[in-house]
Every structure is written in structure tokens, then in C-alpha cells.
């Protein structure tokens, strides 16, 4: 049997939303479930994004995921990640999936709000405009519940969606088609 191709975790949030009034990130507990229990509507203007508590970091056996101290979002070290999926299970926001490492093109937003709300929530947000869906040659991207979702089985990582996304919400891990 052929060797299975490597898979890595993908965080579907790029960070960037402003914290809600009264939220001081440094004072939040280091446990996302606790944060979510205390703040059911989230801690930022975008209620869908990364809580920054680092539960994924704690769950990762390989030290391959860390909360970026400046952008307050979990970031995967793709070389260290083994694709075990423990981080995905640990995320109460369901922001993490495990995808083939070759699928370097990924949507980094999970905001399901309507366009104008999503636009205001974050500079990196998907507003569900559907441009990606129209330009995808493979029929691999669809806007589902207000945000773009890529079917990893259909995607061939050409990057067309990333080049055309007006919000920069679709990311290229190789940094060629979209650098943000």
C-alpha cells in the first residue's frame, strides 16, 4: 500500500478582529472552552473567530500550533504538524480542519454573518460574495452559510480563488497566490 500523503491542520481564521469592549485578552483564561462559557457571543466583534486561549496548543503533541501573540490567532507550523487532528477536537469554535498538505490554498475565515456584518467584523473576513465560487475551475469552492468552503477532494490548489478574493480571505501556504 502506498504511503499516505501528509496531512496538516488548517486554522480557518486569520485573526484581526477587534476585541469587544471590556475584553482584555491578557486576562482571559488559557482554555478556550472556559472563555466560550464565559463569553457565549465571543470576545471579538467577530463572534466566529479564534478565542486565543491556546487549547489547541495544549492539545498538540508536537508543538506544531501556537497562538500568535500579535494577531491573537492560532498558527500552524506546517513542517512540524503531523495531521493528528487533536487541535481540531480541542477547538470549541470548530475553526480547525485537517487537510492534505498539498492543498496549500485554504479559506482562513469562518464568519457566517451576512456580508455587511462580516465586512465590519474583521479586515480579513469572508463576506460570502461568491467570487471564489465563480472562478474556481474545479467546482471545488462554494459559499455555504455565508462563507467560502473548499472541498479538499476536488481542490487542486491552483490558487485562482486566492488571486481573485477581494478580501484576501483565502490563503496560500506557499505565499505565492496570496501573501497575507
Amino acid at each position, binding site marked *: 500500500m502506498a*504511503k*499516505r500523503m501528509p496531512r496538516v491542520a488548517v486554522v480557518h481564521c486569520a485573526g484581526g478582529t477587534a476585541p469587544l469592549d471590556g475584553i482584555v485578552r491578557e486576562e482571559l483564561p488559557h482554555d478556550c472552552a472556559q472563555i466560550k462559557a464565559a463569553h457565549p457571543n465571543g470576545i471579538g466583534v467577530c463572534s466566529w473567530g479564534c478565542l486565543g486561549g491556546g487549547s489547541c496548543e495544549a492539545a498538540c503533541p508536537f508543538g506544531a500550533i501556537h497562538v500568535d501573540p500579535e494577531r491573537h490567532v492560532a498558527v500552524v507550523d506546517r513542517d512540524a504538524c503531523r495531521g493528528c487532528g487533536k487541535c481540531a477536537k480541542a477547538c470549541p469554535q470548530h475553526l480547525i480542519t485537517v487537510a492534505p498538505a498539498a492543498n496549500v490554498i485554504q479559506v482562513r475565515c469562518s464568519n457566517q454573518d451576512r456580508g455587511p456584518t462580516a465586512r465590519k467584523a474583521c479586515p480579513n473576513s469572508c463576506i460570502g460574495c461568491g467570487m471564489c465560487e465563480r472562478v474556481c475551475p474545479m467546482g471545488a469552492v462554494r459559499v*455555504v452559510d455565508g462563507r467560502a468552503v473548499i472541498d479538499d*477532494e476536488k481542490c487542486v490548489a491552483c490558487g*485562482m480563488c486566492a*488571486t481573485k478574493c477581494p478580501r484576501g480571505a483565502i490563503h496560500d501556504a506557499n505565499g*505565492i497566490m496570496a501573501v497575507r
Partner: protein
Amino acid sequence: MAEQFTFTVNGKTVTTDQDKPLLRFLRDDLGLTSVKDGCSEGACGTCTVGVDGIATKGCVITTRLAQGRTIETVEGLTHEEQEAFVYAFGAVGAVQCGFCIPGMVMSGAMLVRRNPDPSEEEVKWAIRGNICRCTGYKKIIEGILKAAAILRGDERMDDALEKGDDYGVGERAFRVDVRRKVLGYGKYPDDLAREDYPDMCYASAVRSKYPRARVVSIDTSKAEALPGVVGVLLARDVPVNQVGHLIQDWDVMIAEGDVTRCVGDAICLVVAEDEATLAKAKRLVKVEYEVLEPVRNIAEAKAAGAPLVHDSFNAFGNHVVLHDNVCQSRHITRGDAKAALAASAHVVTHDFETPFTEHAFLEPECAVAFPYKNGVKVCSTDQGAYDTRKEVAHMFGWDAEPERVVVQTMLVGGGFGGKEDVSVQHLAALAAVRFGRTVKCKLTRQESLAFHPKRHYMYATFTLGCDEDGHLTGLDCEVNFDTGAYASLCGPVLERACTHAVGPYTYQNTDIRGFGYYTNNPPAGAFRGFGVCQTEFALEACMDLLANEVGISPWEMRWRNAVEPGEVLPNGQIADCSTALKETLLAVKDVYEKNASHAGIACAMKNSGVGVGLPDAGRANIRVEGGRAVVYSATSDIGQGCNTVFLQDVAEATGLPLEALANGECSTEAAPDSGTTSGSRQTVVTGEAVRGAAFLLRDAMLDVEAGRPVPQGPVRAKGDGKTITYEDGTPYQGVGYADGSALVAGHGIHPADPRAALLALEGHEFGYVYFEPTDKLGADKPNPKSHICYGFSSTVVVLEEKGPNRGKIKEIYAAHDSGKVVNPIAIQGQIEGGVLMGMGYALTEDFPMKDAVPQAKYGTLGLLHSTQIPNIHAIYVEKEHLLPVSYGGKGIGEIATIGTAPAVQNAYHQLDGELRWRLPLDDTPYSRKRAWGDERLSVLKGAEE
């Protein structure tokens, strides 16, 4: 000052102020022809380049995104990399049509640089965004692995292979076109540019959005007023506004007041100095339509009061008035099917449905035409230069003087039947003549999808019977084809579907009724398998149903009925000495019976040569030019490798090495008509013509060596497969011919020093015409001979029986009887590619229509990718007794595709007992009905609840 983008391309720093796809910059501004334009949508991978060492699609990345980066194309690979890929791809047979190859090489080369010893799986993933329609990927994967091994120093190149001193029939021949296709300097029509033709302008048609609409008015004034527009041509500017391969029913342009017949019908042809102006001008053309209800399918075409898609057409000089939407029909009977079925111990009857499918050749249609002598010359990608000449000349009203049109076939980036009709050649020629300029006309990928003929949709009812022991008794069937808006090759395709509906078995009672209906869908025509893929899918499913009723194994069922040499096929033709269907069955017996609970089997046959009484001749001239024997024969090598086969035939006959051989210009001016690349005929029909001419050359070479006088003028002869006569009627007396010894590969009688003998013949020419008559359909003979020969195959598909992959295809064994294997390297790729195309047909490929409007894009056709291929075993059986023509070679081109889909269906039938009667098959792990968002979405939804 405008923004500037600076980056390096193959080591040179370049700067541009244009923000455009890198593909366009590399091709148009830098003239890098290896970067192919297959779709410009990101779906096909032919434009793959290296960007900072990462394989990236050139049509997706822009010059803006390339800013500061390092770009590499095949032209910029190191010499060692170039040589390794040329050798490796040639040695394993990875190159067929070649259009995908530079992109494959870049994907492979970038992988190998990062990972010098990749696994097979890693190679598959590296090329998963690159489509290949010819090879089935297996040879390309092998080629990349081999190139990696060479670059690591683990393997050495064998220079003798490309040199080709032993290039005879049966040798592992390094294809003649490998180097130019791998390195990307071979010219397809789109590679002809302003540098070659400084007066080049560009043409493209405004096409109908509606399948059926009356064109109320066409306003071209704004487009014509746009600076840079050369002109706009309308139906009234076309001398004869109707073309067609056999039946002339295809309007070059739809005139004001007329009704469109399918999406993509040309309304007017815009010609401009550059492509940007062309695109702008096309948008300025205002067409007013009165939208009409389309004829969507066969049922609507048959309905009382249905609008007539065509009220008449021209066929072979006759004007035919139509009263219904039946384009073509055939009724083939032999014996008494009704009585035979009534008396049968077992009878099964079932409906079957197969979809339209798209050839998806990697190279979209393109032609370059310019005024030439007293007419026009067209550089074309097609399947027959003389066919294109005939259609273009007809459009100009030059039926009586077709030589005013000269057609040259360039490299062809795949055809599979989809390039038999004219698509852009006539438009380029029209504009070239009208404006006195060189004109390039090419289709976008989406235009190509809408416009060129597809595989026919079929709805059929089959009734098949057998006796208690499983011997077939009779077949009754009705085959309904949707031929879409235009006839294209509906007649011959329908006919082949009907004549092959019987399968390669021995029974004599058949009643087969075939109908091809006009609708407003895109036209349907030739596609690898030529109608036979559809009907053999139905027949082979019935074979398994009958086997179950009789209580014998499906393999045994086929064995009991399989035709043997000397036996009579259901069409009356006596199977010739080379027939090896039973040998192919034996080759797959063990693997089938061992896995019978989760494996499927299917037999198939396919004619070689057009046959059925038509004047289907092979013609070849060999001229000695510059110390080389140059083969002139107007035949399209669409990737199958016939140009290599012809040189092998000459090498076999004369003993010459490859360096003393060449293919001449493939044009109607330089080479004789050797028919269409269709009907698996080039290896046999043209191959025999080349062999004949090569014998004449060899005789002259022997004369030179013996000190005998050599004829001064051209030497010409003709043969019918039985006798050969010189032009003056005297019988041919060449050494080794009368006793047949020299007709067998490996037994040629050659000059002692072929090269020296050839040099003495500089300027001499040798010509041969091979025409073996066949009987027309329904000929009043007990045993009519419909075709020169048939190829046979047995295919076994093995599914995963258990585990999470249950139902996925594990292995496919394809055993083929194609007579003498001319090039062992090439035949494997032909079989593997055909098998994978058949697997796509079975499981994933579709061409859905909504109200007669095609819905697919290139990327959503369901073409299989490299990561989806099973293990394919190409097996070929060679009989001792072969046909006396073409060294015993029979065609492999089409039959490679036919057996797979029915074998896949039968495998699922064995696995779960369910008969799947429609293609693509329902309810398999490959079925495309996954809900959007799938796992991730369900996780999110679960979280909300």
C-alpha cells in the same frame, strides 16, 4: 509612471507594466512556447511553471504576483534536467500528443528538486493538477521517477535508444517527437506567432448564448468603428454558408432571420489586430434574439409537432428534405431474431442509458490561415488534412478545385475523434482570404466545450437470448442516439454502434434498429470507440445477466461464445487468421475467477479501417532527400504515434536506422491523401501503404548494391492486400514477397549497407497506394467482409472487496489482440490511456445539460486525476498467424477504451447484485453527489444545535 513588475524568467530579469496572467506574458511577450494554453482557467495544468521552485499554474499567477520572484519554464531547466526528462519520458512512452508534457515536466522537475527520491504516491500528488488525456498518467509517473533516478545518478541513459539504429517493427522505438514535445519547441498551431507571420491578426466569433433563438438583428457598427478592428464578417460574407464532414448541415454563421441550433453557433466573425481589441470588439456587437423553446432530448425530438431542428441537408450532392428530427437511421438484420429469441431457453431484456461525454483533449482548437498562391493555406490541428481541405474548399465554393486550399497539419494536442470536423479552420481561412492577412482563430476552452461534437448520448433497449448451455441465440435492440444540433459523423458512428452491438461472438440472428435524432444540444460525433462504447456497455451487461440465468461464470459465458479464426461473426464476416479473442480471455481467466465475487469482465471488438465498401485508401510516398528516406503521407498523428510507426515500417523493410529516416511535411500540398485518423486505421491502412513504398525503395537499394540500373522516374505501385502491381500493370516481383517471408517482421531482406545504397538514390521517389475493398453494409453475400480486420480485447476490473475502500477499483487487466505489436513502448500507453478514459466514462465523466445549455467547465467534466488511477495492467497477445498487411499490426486506438466501462459495471454487479444500467454508474464510491461542505459543515452544524 505606471506600476512596474520585475521578476526573473529562466535567469533573465524582465520588467513589464502590464498586469496580466503570467501565461500570457511568457507566451506573447517572451515567446516561450513550452508554456501551453490549455484552458486559461487553472483546470488543466498545461501552463505549469516553476515559481520560486514551486510548480504553479501560469494562467492563475499574474505578473503582479510574480513581482520579485524567480520563474522557470522547461526552456530554463538545467541541461542535465532537460536531457533526463527527454530520455526518461521517451524511454517509458510518456509522450503521446505532448500538449500536457511541458507542464508535467515542470511539476515533476520542481518535485525532484525538493525531493530527489520521491515515492510513486508523491509523484501522483505532484501532478494531480495536471490533466493528461492520452496516457492514463502511469507512463508519466514512471517517466518522472526515471528522470529522478537519472538525476540522482542511480540510473544511466542509454543513448542508443533515442538514436534508433534498430528501429524496426517490434523494437522499443523512441518516438520521433519526444524531444520537441518535452522541451516545448514543437509547434502546435497556437505556437505560430507574430514572429513567424508579422501580418498576423486575430479572429473570434460572437456565439449564440441560446440553443434555439431567432437572430432578429445583428449590429456590428460599433465593433467595426473600434480602432484596431480589421473587420466583421457575417453569414452573407460566406460564399457557401454550410459545411459538414459528410452531411452538410452546419451553418458557418447564422444569418439574420435564421434560427440558432445550439449554444455556440457563430453569429459573426470579428477580426482585430490584437487579442485585447478583439475581446473588446466582440462585446460591442449587439445581437437581438427572439428566444425559442429548445428541443432538449430525444423524447422532445420525437414528439408530435416538435420543431424541426433542420428542414433539410445536403449529403453527397443530394438535397434531402426532412420531415422529422431523425438525422440518420440504420436497420441491420441477419437471420430471424424474433424466432430465435422466442425459442431461447433464457432471454434478458433491459434499457441502458449513456451520457454525452467530452473529449477534453488538452489543446483547444486553433488554426492559422494566410493567402497562398491562388487560394489559402491553413495550419491546422485536425484528424485529416484532406478532410479539412474538403470542408474549407466547399465553403469557398471551390469543390471542383479543392487544391486552392492547402491544409498543413501541425502537431495535434489530442483529438480522440473531436477534431474530425472543422471548427476554426474555415473561419481563419475565410478571414484570411477576405482581408488578405494572416489570421489566427482559436477557441477558448469554454467555446470548445460547447462547440465540437461530443460522444453521442444513448438510450437503448437490448434483448439477448441464449440456449440452456449459454450459447447465444439472438439479439434484438433499438439504439437511440442524440446527435445534437448537427450531423457531424452521426451516420457512421450510429452504424458502428449497430454493427458492433452484437459483440465478438458467434450467433447469427440479429435485429438492430438505430436512430440518430437532431436536438438543440451540442452536436455529437466521433469519439474514440465510435459508438461502440455505448452499445457494448449494454451488451456486456446482458451477457452477465444471461450467465447468471444459465448458472455459469461470466468468463465461461464469454468463452463459450467467443469467436475463433474461421468462424462467422454476427455480421457474416469470417474471422480472419489473426483473431485472438480467446487468447485475450485466457490471459485474464485466472485473475477473474480468483476475484469473481468482486470483479467484472467484458469482451470487445473494434474494426480497423473505415470499411463497409467505402474507398478507404492508404497512400504514401517516400522521397530520398538529403540522404534520408522521407515519408510523405497526409495523416494526423494526434498522439497515437503513427509517425513513429511509419518510420518503423520503413526501417523494417529497408534496414535503415532512424537517422536516415524522417517524416515529411504533413500537408495536402506535399503529401498524398491517406485518410482520416479515425477507425483505428493509420497503423493498418497507412502502415501498409508505407510498407509498400518502402519495399519499392528497398528494391532500388538492392539494385544499387547489385550494380543493376535504377529506374529514373518515380516508382509507383498499388496493392489490395493480396496482389501488388506496378503502375503499368505488371505484377510486383520483389524479393521475399511472393512467398510472404518479407511480410513478417524480423524476416526482411535488406541491402548489406542500407545507408550507402540510400545515398545513391538521392532525389528518387517511391509511391504506394493500398486499397483493400470491403463490402457495403447489407451486401447480398453469405459472408460479406465489412472491415479489413478487427481488434479484440478482454478486460477485467477488480474492486476492493473489504474495508474502507470497498467498491474502489483496485486493478484493471486489459488484454488486447491488436495483431503484431509495432512499438511495445507505445502500445502500453495507448492501452492504459484508453482504459482510464473508459474508467472515467464508467464512473465520473458527464456532460450535463440544462435546457440544452451545457453546464460543465473543463475542471468539472469528471476527468480522472493522477491520484485516482488504479493499477492498470496492459497485456497484449500476439498470434503466430498474422495478417499479411502492415506486418500484421491491427489498430489499438479505439478498442483500448471500449471494454472498461462494461467491465466496471459488471464488477459492481458481482459485488452487490445490483444492475447499474446508466453511465456514469450510480451508487459507487466515485459517484459525484457529495453534499456541499461535507464533514466540516456537519461539524459546524452539529455545534450550532
